[in-house]
């Protein structure tokens, strides 16, 4: 049936290369990442060593998981700004509960607010049709307030980081961060979910055209509620991992990761309008941002100039990436 008409005359090499990369959007992204690492190595010869790689991966992992939450919510045309608060809450609650409870119990207690916030987000967005930005912003305000109130009840109890989480967060095995033990399964699961499960298909469908999904029998609220709960639980798990890495519970622990998590997803090629994108790009996006942070820390220049450079590079990377993959 399809009279598959492809251009028959020889295509110039440049265009062929472009098309090759456009079909494999990960490749240009990885090239951009490698370019940044090379620049770093040129500016500070010797910095790119085993230890640096391990550190970069350690710090990129929590960002990448949170960016996974953003990727999935963005596929449905949403966004989850409460991930920072949720991660902070579960970290703080775990660290303060572990003083009196078994670590496993403390972790379970810590994940309860994550599930609750996810549920509220999901019902607000899915049933009441509140814009996700407002909904998650609202719940993150509420969560922060609750955490503050909670904090006052545990001032005197101190905090502890279970050795297991510290091992997971900071430890290395043969130079490889232990955090990968948690991250690799999560990443595989997310990628698999998005590509090969019904739920993943529905995320794309709902984000692309909710009406069409509805006519195909998809119940929007079910998808959205499940999504936000998953996103919140992932954020909670990130909080646990992150506290193992930072080892200092604070009331704003993971907040600084929120905007970068959105940026990582977007750099990785996920559309914030919904319907297109994927997780593998996001992971590279998180790595790019982490390397970029290092690059700017290492550069000796005024803080103002550093931020300007950060902004310009993020813009450049995203623009270059879009240019390369646009003509698919």
């Amino acid at each position, binding site marked *: *049936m*399809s*009279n*598959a*008409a*492809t*251009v028959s005359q020889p295509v110039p090499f440049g265009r062929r290369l472009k*098309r090759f990369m*456009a079909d494999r959007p990960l490749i240009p992204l990885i090239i951009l990442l490698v370019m940044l690492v090379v620049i770093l190595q040129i500016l500070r010869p010797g910095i790119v060593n085993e230890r640096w790689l391990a550190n970069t991966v350690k710090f990129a992992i929590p960002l990448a998981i949170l960016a996974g939450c953003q990727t999935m919510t963005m596929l449905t045309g949403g966004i989850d700004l409460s991930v920072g608060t949720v991660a902070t809450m579960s970290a703080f609650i775990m660290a303060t509960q572990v003083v009196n409870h078994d670590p496993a119990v403390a972790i379970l207690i810590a994940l309860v607010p994550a599930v609750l916030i996810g549920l509220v987000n999901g019902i607000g967005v899915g049933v009441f049709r509140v814009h996700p930005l407002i909904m998650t912003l609202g719940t993150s305000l509420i969560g922060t307030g609750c955490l503050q109130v909670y904090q006052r009840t545990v001032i005197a109890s101190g905090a502890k980081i279970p050795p297991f989480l510290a091992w997971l967060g900071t430890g290395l095995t043969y130079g490889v961060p232990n955090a990968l033990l948690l991250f690799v399964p999560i990443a595989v699961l997310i990628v*698999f979910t998005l590509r*090969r*499960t*019904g*739920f993943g*298909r*529905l995320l*794309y*469908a709902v984000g*692309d*055209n909710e*009406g*069409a*999904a*509805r*006519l*195909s*029998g*998809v*119940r929007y609220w*079910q998808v959205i509620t*499940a999504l936000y709960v998953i996103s919140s639980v992932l954020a909670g798990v990130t909080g646990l991992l992150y506290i193992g890495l930072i080892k200092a519970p604070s009331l704003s622990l993971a907040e600084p990761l929120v905007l970068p998590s959105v940026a990582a997803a977007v750099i990785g090629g996920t*559309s914030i309008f919904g*319907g*297109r994108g994927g997780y593998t790009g996001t992971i590279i996006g998180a790595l790019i941002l982490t390397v970029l942070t290092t690059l700017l820390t290492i550069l000796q220049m005024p803080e103002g100039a550093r931020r300007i450079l950060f902004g310009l590079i993020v813009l450049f990377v995203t623009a270059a990436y879009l240019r390369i993959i646009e*003509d*698919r």
Partner: protein
Amino acid sequence: MTTNPLLDATGVVKTYGAVVALRNASLSVLPGEVHALMGANGAGKSTLVKILTGAIRADAGHILIRGEARDVRSPADARRAGLLPVYQEPSLIPDLDVASNLRLTDTPVEPFRAWVRELGIPDLDIRETARDIPLAVLRVLDLARALAVEPDVLLLDEMTAALPANLAEKVLEVVRSQGDSGRSVIFISHRFVEISALCDRATVLRDGETVGVVAIEPGVEERIVEMMLGARIEKTRVAARQASQAASPGDSRPRLGVANLRVGTKLNDVSFDLANGEVAGIVALEGQGQDELLAALAGSIRPSGGTIEVDGKPVKFAHPADAIRAGIAYVPGDRTEALTMQRSVRENVALPFSSALRNWGPINMAQERSRVVSAIERLQIDTRAQREVQRLSGGNQQKVTIARWIAAEAQTILCFDPTRGIDVGTKQEIYKLLRELADQGKSVLFYTSELEEVQRVCDRVIVIFGGRVVDVFPVELADEPALMRAAYGLPCGAKEDVGILADIHSSPVAKP
């Protein structure tokens, strides 16, 4: 040729990545001519119109307007050059009211109003927001907006496809008068009746290439079809329905029983049955409640009264999912309502597979693939640009909306104008498909704006007027004048059979 062409395009090329939308297209339009642009789905007609009007840029080609090479870079440029398009999709700004839409394009209001009346919409409120206006009316408004600035060349891309018969007729009248008053019209349609009644010449595109220009004269259709379809030509035609073929409702329980159904103010008291193995056609003018009827049966909106029974059991649909579980699938008229445009053909077709909670888990990719591929083959979907449905041509998108339910093996299919914008070859395929479904014991409820389709596919005709069923009669009694009269609320009477390619001179343009 004594006169110089008003618009002359040659060697137009446009590629999208590996997909060649236009290979070598040319088009030449004389002043005062109504010129048909024909071709199968995906031949490149819309692409050519978009290029001529500056909506997209060609990779190569020469375009002369009144003999001068003009660089048309945007629709605004085209407008200044006297070229006004009505695209396949409505182009009114959805969130602005009609008046603001007119102001945005510097369209004079009074001529616009006059044209709207002329086109058969007597009571338009121009403070109405475009989003709230039905698709068919939007198309007419688009046309009126173009006519109001008196363009030299009017480009109409499947203008009549989404229109019910009464509005389509008005459009044809207006287009003819344009030609008569010395302006040119480029007219894209898949309906031969319209082409033969209206056009002077036709340019035929196949796979992005102009394969011929012919003058329209009696008997030319077969040649055009041959040119359009090339090797793909379909000899098998579905014969008109015969009384003997009508499904025998041996099964006493109807598949679908509707009694006293009401929806808001649009639908009052509709009752009918749909048997297994039956194709029932709904005939109605624009806005008689047929949209609401199908939407209510599909669980998309809630009826305000009446009962629906499926296989004898009363049902209440709160969500399309409920209807789908009862085996009822709905193909809406507006394909943008049914498709996830950024996703692939495969994902669109497979969408219903994973909608239910129990199917959220891992997908059996091989099984999905085979089901999708067979549905695609059955509908002959051109899959060159299948990675994103939005890159398919309009007709191919339309096919995807149907393919989905073929793949999902729905027991009952509610189709709202499924052949809208589909080329002749494929239309035959769809008729055949619907009949096959009926033969397999499935039932189809089928609203169409092209009355002659009723005779080709339906067993029974249900006529709706003013939100009520005014008549139900077997297909043998359904000739075009009878249908037309019934649609206007008049009683039916028997007349002789009229087919698409049968007799161009008895076209419906001249009446009523």
